[in-house]
């Protein structure tokens, strides 16, 4: 890990001195992660590609501003996340169906999410998830993610889907690790409730 960071810092130094190839190497190193993060947020490959382009270009234009206080990858993810969230907000304002309007039931879930002991847990005899086709399952997972408020969704995507550590997520979002843990906790509770009817809650 440290070696990778050293290599990144070497490439950054070269890129700052005008070495285009060094910058391109850096982008190649993280393009899959950036694309994946953007796709998770936008669920649209074309828009995720746009985010990748915007991120790479913005990183090049602003490279001198990168002082190396965080890892280069963290800085890059921050840029990517900002662009992805910007697209998401545009998408939301354009498409009513993408707007988070909790149903009465979801509102209740959200209100009770804090710490109260969960009641009325659904019990099912068989595992309904087994009867779903793979694509159906993916749609259900993505729909559930979409129902999360942005601040919870972003943390859940970075930590659970993109595999970043709590510390890394904290740096990307400029929040404390404690705040990340709280958001993560709430996002999981919310998702567990949203997915409730598909989960095998039997013992």
């Amino acid at each position, binding site marked *: 890990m440290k070696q990778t960071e050293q290599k990144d810092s070497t490439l950054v130094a070269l890129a700052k001195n*005008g070495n*285009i190839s060094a*910058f*391109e190497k850096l*982008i*190649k190193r993280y*393009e*899959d992660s950036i*694309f*994946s993060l953007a*796709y*998770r947020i936008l669920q649209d*490959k074309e828009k*995720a*590609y746009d985010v*990748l*382009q915007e991120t*790479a*270009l913005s990183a*090049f*234009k602003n490279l001198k501003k990168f002082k190396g206080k965080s890892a280069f990858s963290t800085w890059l993810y921050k840029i990517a996340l900002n662009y992805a969230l910007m697209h998401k907000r545009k998408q939301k304002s354009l498409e009513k169906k993408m707007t988070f309007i909790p149903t009465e039931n979801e509102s209740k879930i959200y209100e009770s999410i804090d*710490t*109260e*002991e*969960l009641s009325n*847990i659904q*019990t099912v005899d068989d595992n309904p*998830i087994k009867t779903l086709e793979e694509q159906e*399952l*993916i749609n259900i*997972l993505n729909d559930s993610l979409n129902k999360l408020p942005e601040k919870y969704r972003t943390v*859940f995507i970075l930590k*659970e*889907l993109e595999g970043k550590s*709590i510390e890394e997520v904290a740096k990307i979002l400029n929040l404390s690790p404690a705040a990340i*843990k709280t958001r*993560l*906790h709430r996002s*999981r*509770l919310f*998702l*567990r409730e949203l*997915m*409730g009817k*598909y*989960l*095998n*809650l*039997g*013992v």
Partner: protein
Amino acid sequence: MIIKCKDILDLLSEFFDDELDMKEEEFLFDHLYQCSRCLQIYNSYRQMLDLFHLLKPVKLEQERKKEFHKWLHVEIKQIVIKRKYKKL
């Protein structure tokens, strides 16, 4: 340490983040073995996370990647040239 049912969700989150020490984990599982309701919560919590972990990483197709590399190279060159002209 006595674990109460109302604390179980907080503890589960810490457990899945590897934040509990061995003793706390022991208390958690002792409670789960004795409380079928909390065990249900644990099972569904774990199942939910497992399901989301099934979502595979999304990768850019090779052709699209090549296209992106070409595009980036041209864009960067243009920026470099513009910067040079500004300096003159």
